[in-house]
């Protein structure tokens, strides 16, 4: 089991490669999930990459990252437990990444695979469309990274989260991050911007996802993520069964919220 103190993670994407630790008291961060690293380096999507509305952010970063080889040559050394995040553009790339990572997997308290990025043309969200293929992928990744605490990050598109959870559980995975951003579109000054929605708008969707998964698979470790901006939000996630609370977009509003929620979680999980 993953024992994070507090059970609070800074989520992949907004947390970058740990930059926010310069602004946050480490005692209140259970772990940082690093930015998703892909097989090949990715320059990301052209700007504009982000927009906001009253209750949401829309991002189209496009998994900008140095690629797995560069990442492994220069692993981030953070002052808090670290969870790596990986994503492939194809079935084979996921497997290649797992093989490359295997020798260094012990550097991380867990390894997350991102099966849900909405901002890439290949891989990401599309990998779960073929259920049987995804089931085989989960099994093969589990076999390669047999010693790692494996977490599947999924969204609400492609398949029901409870079905995704069942496949992950049966393949021997340890946890899930629920949920990734949801595909969205806004029209800004006459221009269409596609991206992934996050922020407060995501919270009821993510709460339902956590609820559905935890009541069926109580032994799956679930990081609840989506619209956590306050201690009250964190309480709601604990109520529906989340084992840990993920903070993403709220970092952009106030990094100090991590300390408030972390302090609360340390108190209630003492």
């Amino acid at each position: 089991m993953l024992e994070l103190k507090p059970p609070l993670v800074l989520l992949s994407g907004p947390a970058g490669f740990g930059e926010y630790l310069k602004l946050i008291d480490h005692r209140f961060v259970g772990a940082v999930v690093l930015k998703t690293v892909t097989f090949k380096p990715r320059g990301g999507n052209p700007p504009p990459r982000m927009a906001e509305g009253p209750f949401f952010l829309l991002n189209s970063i496009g998994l900008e990252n140095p690629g797995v080889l560069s990442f492994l040559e220069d692993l981030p050394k953070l002052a808090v437990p670290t969870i790596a995040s990986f994503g492939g553009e194809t079935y084979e790339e996921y497997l290649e990444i797992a093989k490359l990572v295997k020798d260094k997997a012990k550097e991380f308290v867990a390894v997350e695979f991102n099966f849900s990025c909405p901002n890439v043309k290949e891989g990401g969200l599309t990998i779960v469309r073929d259920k049987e293929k995804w089931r085989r992928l989960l099994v093969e990744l589990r076999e390669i990274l047999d010693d790692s605490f494996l977490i599947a990050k999924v969204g609400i598109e492609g398949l029901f989260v409870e079905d995704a959870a069942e496949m992950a559980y049966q393949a021997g995975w340890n946890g899930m991050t629920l949920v990734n951003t949801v595909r969205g579109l806004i029209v800004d000054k006459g221009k269409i911007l596609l991206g992934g929605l996050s922020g407060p708008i995501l919270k009821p969707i993510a709460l339902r996802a956590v609820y559905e998964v935890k009541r069926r698979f109580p032994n799956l470790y679930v990081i609840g993520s989506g619209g956590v901006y306050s201690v009250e939000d964190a309480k709601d996630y604990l109520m529906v069964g989340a084992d840990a609370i993920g903070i993403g977009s709220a970092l952009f509003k106030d990094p100090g919220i991590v300390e408030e929620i972390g302090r609360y979680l340390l108190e209630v999980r003492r």
Partner: protein
Amino acid sequence: MERFCLTKRDVFRVNEDTWIVSFEETIDFLPGQFLMVETPKLVRKPFALGYWGGHLAISVQIKGVGTSWIVHESKRLKAHGPLGNGFVKPGKGALLISPTCVTMAWAFKKFMDVDVIVGSRTPVLLDLGFETVVGDEAFLEKLREVSRKDYDWYLVAGSRSMEKVCWEELKGKREVYFSLEEYMACGIGACKSCATLTNFGIKHVCTDGPVFRGEDLCWS
């Protein structure tokens, strides 16, 4: 870089939509650096660090509820900074700015030998302490005059259209710089949202800038 709270000291109106907000506290920073300020909206907003009347200050163009809140309603502002790379140059420079950068200009004056020209689309309501021209035609005339003087370096900070006009006039000069504004969420290199296309690929305004050389930017 650290988190802190700033206490508003004074607010001054510069023109139709731009204000100067000064603070009681001070922080150490270099010209060109910025800070991220919390608003009632979901994402902190970047503002160039500067001075007004000897006090730490930012210039705020009201674009929506967040910037309006900073100017009209807030008393204390949560922020983090200083962020980005400082810009300090030897020699005689020319700084061409919009009113949204007037406080930044005072930081440049503190560290460098620089002539400042402010170009405003609407009448200016305050003595900014710098040569100020109003309207596009007046600014273009001033820009040509500044170009003829052959400064050691030029820096432009304003709207995208102002940057383009200045680049067209100044691109033959040795050193021409632009302080860019892009939508930014973290200001510290984590989120990768402030990407800008350059001739060397994607760069990030928060960590690679905010000041870039003109010839490195994609102008099309």
